[in-house]
């Protein structure tokens, strides 16, 4: 408090009078609000996190200062479950890894087991696997693109995407008997052949699906809002992407040409004429474009495969590997014994280990398996493509806007089931 007895010294002529003079410096004109860091929990149950991921975000204004990803809400003990059932019984568990493209997981798993046993599956089965995989690749990319469109404010592309998805699901249901959890294929080939008249239906459906994809493409690719939200956001450099172990369309968006289908062709991919789209910048927009283009390439592959598919057996005729035909089971003692042994004990996979990979919708789906020579796996390691991709999200998004997190999370297409096993 000022002393009232002290004489007030007259203001010196140089000092500005706060009441009369405009003395504030330019910089002082801005009101300095104290910024306080804010903690935001996105998820585990958040519409934009698709699965159940908890993103602990520390915000400074609108910028993300710190981010931590907490995963595991969807953990089901995939590996432990597989170690306690027969090789064939693992197959339904693989459906639930990437539940948007279940067939690719089925076939990837089977491919690794067949490699461990040392089997060459019949040609027709290889074609069916290619067709099924590519159908589900379109299905997976449709889901990703549609959801990205929806979360960035466009509901119409989402509806187009879902309509197209529905068409594919109908064909998948005719082929496998289930819409999502396909449980398709068996060790040594396929469990059922293409249904009567299915190929024509697929061609017709693909025509429709591709026109819907074009529709989505037209609505999104040059949409001002969509481009503003995705272009130059969520950028990762090619070196970082490789270092983190990215694969699939997300790695190719950075300009790296790596596709397992081309690098190490499996099944009949070497007979297919298709291109692998490569991006430049590694931003969200490029990742989106990769998916649009890959759908068109998958469409090409399916049409070629349906044209080329030969007649013939769909599964090996070896009763130690594949179930005998039903008339043999009911009519002969050998058939009954083989059937019983396969169901109760499982396929006897020779002791050994293998690492094998196929190209799933989001990248390299790797399997490392150890067999102790019994009918059950000793160890099943799955290298889910989404796992390393998700692990790089904190690196990408740190220091960027919170609004960029949504398209980034969309375009990396993290699938809870495979990441959290």
């Amino acid at each position: 408090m000022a002393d009232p007895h002290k004489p007030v010294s007259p203001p010196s002529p140089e000092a500005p009078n706060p009441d009369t003079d405009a003395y504030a410096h330019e910089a002082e004109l801005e009101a300095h609000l104290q910024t306080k860091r804010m903690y935001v929990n996105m998820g585990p149950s958040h519409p934009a996190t698709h699965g159940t991921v908890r993103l602990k975000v520390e915000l400074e204004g609108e910028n993300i200062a710190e981010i931590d990803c907490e995963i595991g809400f969807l953990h089901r003990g995939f590996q432990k479950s597989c170690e306690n059932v027969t090789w064939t019984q693992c197959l339904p568990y693989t459906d639930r890894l990437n539940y948007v493209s279940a067939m690719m997981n089925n076939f990837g798993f089977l491919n690794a087991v067949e490699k461990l046993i040392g089997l060459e599956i019949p040609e027709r089965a290889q074609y069916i696997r290619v067709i099924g995989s590519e159908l589900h690749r379109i299905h997976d990319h449709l889901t990703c693109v549609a959801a990205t469109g929806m979360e960035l404010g466009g509901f119409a592309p989402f509806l187009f995407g879902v309509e197209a998805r529905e068409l594919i699901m109908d064909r998948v249901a005719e082929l496998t008997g289930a819409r999502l959890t396909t449980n398709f294929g068996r060790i040594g080939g396929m469990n059922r052949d293409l249904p009567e008249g299915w190929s024509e239906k697929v061609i017709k459906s693909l025509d429709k699906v591709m026109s819907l994809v074009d529709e989505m493409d037209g609505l999104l690719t040059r949409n001002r809002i969509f481009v503003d939200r995705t272009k130059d956001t969520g950028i990762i450099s090619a070196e970082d992407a490789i270092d983190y172990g990215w694969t699939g369309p997300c790695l190719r968006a950075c300009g790296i040409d790596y596709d397992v289908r081309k690098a190490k062709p499996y099944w009949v991919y070497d007979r297919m004429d298709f291109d692998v789209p490569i991006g430049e910048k590694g931003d969200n927009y490029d990742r989106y474009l990769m998916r649009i283009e890959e759908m068109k390439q998958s469409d090409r592959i399916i049409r070629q495969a349906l044209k080329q598919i030969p007649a013939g057996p769909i599964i090996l005729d070896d009763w130690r590997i594949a179930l005998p035909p039903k008339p043999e089971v009911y009519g002969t003692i050998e058939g009954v014994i083989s059937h019983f042994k396969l169901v109760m004990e499982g396929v006897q996979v020779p002791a050994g280990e293998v690492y094998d990979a196929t190209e799933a919708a989001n990248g390299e789906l790797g399997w490392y398996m150890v067999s102790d020579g019994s009918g059950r796996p000793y160890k099943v390691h799955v290298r889910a493509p989404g796992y390393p991709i998700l692990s790089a999200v904190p690196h990408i998004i740190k220091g960027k806007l919170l609004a960029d997190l949504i398209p980034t999370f969309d375009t990396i297409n993290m699938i809870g089931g495979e990441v959290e096993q």
Partner: protein
Amino acid sequence: MSTFALDRVTAQFPEAVAERYLDRTGGAWAVIHAEHLPKVAAFLKNELDFKLFTSIDAVDRLHLAENDPRFEVVYFVYSLSRHEHVRFKVRVSEARPELPSIVSVFRGADWWERFVWDFYGIRFSGHPDLRRVLLYEEFQGHPLRKDYALRDRQPLIPERPIKDIFRGPGTSGVS
């Protein structure tokens, strides 16, 4: 399958390689001594262009014929120029389950090492943030070890008792 990378590693660091073999599918493997692991990883990445980090996992060899040391940690790295994987493993004993971390070489190893710690209880010294990744911090034990009971459930929130529904894989009630 090519043994190029492992040949070069053996030539460069003969003391680091304990064993070389081919698995039954022709894949080339090397068993690396734990203390030389970061050196080998850096050599693979910087000199031999094996840059794309694929994955890490472990195997608990408790029930296998050869089970000493108990754990094997397996590493897969891919070369984009040579189009091949290199596979190598490190053996870890149960008494001292610890390995040097390779996060400083490959950032992609970060979550995989956390995974191995989470499910096998193998520590990675030098890892910047070795927490559990899929399970919660309160979880007791490491579930992918073979001596962890299949039906040992540790819910954070008590589960509703359901007697007549059979949960999970395996035969009858006992694991």
